[in-house]
C-alpha cells in the first residue's frame, strides 16, 4: 500500500480475510476495525460498548489473537485474518463455546456475549488459564453489565473439559 500524500485520504483500499472470506474495502485511515466490521461489512455481531478499550464488547480475533477492535485502525490490519462471532460456527454447528454459553445460560441481555465468546476463544488458544481464578483474571477484559459472570466462567470451564 502506498503512503497517503497531501490530500487527506478518505478512500484507501485494504484487504481483510474476514471469517475465511477475502473482503476488499475502501476506508478512511481513521476508521476503526470495529466500525469497518459493523458499518461497512455489516457484521453487527461485534458490539460497541465503550469505544475506549474498557469493556471488551468489541473483542475479535486478529490472526488468532483476541484484541479490542475499537482501539484498532482497520488500515493497520490490511492483510490480516479476522474472526468475529459470525465466523465461529462451522458446518451449521455452534462453536463449543457458543453451545456452552447456551447450556450454562451465560448471558442475560446478550450484549456482551459476542465479545465474551471471542475473548474466551482467544483465552483457550493462549492456553494460560488452568483454574476458575485464572479464567476470571484472564477474562477480566470483558465486562458483563448483567452480571452473568459465574455462568460465563462455568461455560468456559466446560469447554476446557474441567467440569
Amino acid at each position, binding site marked *: *500500500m502506498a503512503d497517503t500524500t497531501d490530500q487527506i*485520504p478518505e478512500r484507501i483500499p485494504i484487504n481483510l480475510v474476514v471469517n475465511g472470506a477475502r473482503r476488499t474495502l475502501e476506508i*478512511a485511515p481513521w476508521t476503526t476495525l470495529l466500525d469497518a466490521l459493523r458499518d461497512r461489512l455489516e457484521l453487527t455481531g461485534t458490539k460497541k460498548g465503550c469505544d475506549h478499550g474498557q469493556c471488551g464488547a468489541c473483542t475479535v480475533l486478529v490472526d488468532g489473537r483476541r484484541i479490542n477492535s475499537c*482501539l*484498532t*485502525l482497520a488500515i493497520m490490519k490490511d492483510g490480516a485474518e479476522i474472526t468475529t462471532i459470525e465466523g465461529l460456527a462451522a458446518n451449521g454447528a455452534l462453536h463449543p463455546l457458543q453451545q456452552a454459553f447456551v447450556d450454562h445460560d451465560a448471558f442475560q441481555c446478550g450484549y456482551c456475549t459476542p465479545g465474551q465468546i471471542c475473548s474466551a476463544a*482467544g483465552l483457550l488458544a493462549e492456553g494460560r488459564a488452568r483454574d476458575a481464578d485464572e479464567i476470571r483474571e484472564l*477474562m477480566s477484559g470483558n465486562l458483563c453489565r448483567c452480571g452473568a459472570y459465574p455462568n460465563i466462567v462455568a461455560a468456559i470451564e466446560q469447554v476446557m473439559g474441567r467440569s
Partner: protein
Amino acid sequence: MNNFQYSRASDVADAIRLLAADPSAKLIAGGTNLIDLMKENVERPSRLVDISRLPLRDIEETADGGLRIGALVPNSDLAYHPLIEQRYPLLASAILAGASAQLRNMASVGGNLMQRTRCAYFYDTATPCNKRSPGTGCSALDGLNRNHAILGTSRSCIATNPSDMSVALAALGALVHTAGTTGQRTIALTDFHRLPDDKPHVDTNLGSGEIITAIELPPHGFARNYSYLKVRDRLSYAFALVSVAAALELEGNAIGEARLALGGVAHKPWRNLDAEAALRGQAATPDHFGRAADLLLQGATARSQNGFKIELARRAVVRTLMQAANATPQSQAHKKIA
C-alpha cells in the same frame, strides 16, 4: 477523531524521517493509548506513522547475560516469554497486573513506556490542564485528585504515570535504546520519564523525532525473591492506586541487595537509592522494611483527596518486601494477598 495522513514506515530510518518531516506526526504501535486519546481529541496528530510492522520484535540475550527486547514485542508475549518467566518474573508479574488480556496482546513495549497519564482532566478538553494545554492551569490541584501523585509533584501538575511495566523495569535497572536524527542513544529507565516541574506537557526525555528501538535488562533478574503488588479499586483491569515492585538478594535472612520502586504515586516510577541502601546488610524484618518505606516516602505530600495513598504506600511497601523475602510473590490471578 481528527482526519490525518497515514504512512506505514518501511524501516526505523523511514520512521525517523517521517517524524522529522512533520512535527505534529505521531508514531503508532498497538494504538491502545493513542487511538483512545485521539477519540477524545486530546491527541490530534496530522500524520500517523505506523511502526507496527517494523522488525523490532526479537527478544535476544546480550553478551553480558542480559536481555534485549524489541520495542514492538507485545506486552503479553513479553510476560509469557520463557526467559522472562524464568529470569525476570518480577517483570512478567507487573505486565500481567496491567490492563486486560486483549489490551496486552495489542500493547507494545515502546507504547507502554510512552503511555500518558489517566488524569481525568487531561482527558477532558473542556477543562484547564497544563499537560494537555500548557499554561491553562491544573484542574486537579483543587479538584478530583484521589488518584494523583504524592511524590515529586509541582504546582503545574500532580499527575501519575500509569504504567505497571515501567515500575518493574525501574526496579530491575533497565535501559531504553533509542534512535533518532542524531543517532542512537541509551537512557536509563529511571531517567527516561520526567518529573512534571514547570513542563508537565513533556512526559519523557525522548527527543522529538526519536523512536524507542528496544529495552535492555541487566543480567541480574532477582528471580528468587521478588514481588509486584498492585493495590487498586477493583482487583483486575484497573489502574494502580499504589503499586510496589520489590526485589531482594538474600544471604540467609540478611539482605545483600534490595530494589524497590513505586507506581501510582508520581509522574515516573519512584525509586530512591537511599531506601535501598538502608536495607543492605540488614535482617529481612518488617521493622527494617518499614524504615525503608519511610525513606522511600520521604517528602510525600497530599492534596485534598489522596492523603490515604501515603499510608497505603507505606504498608504496601512493607507487605511487598515481606512477600519477596518469603519467596511468596503476589499472584496476579489468585488475588489473596499473602
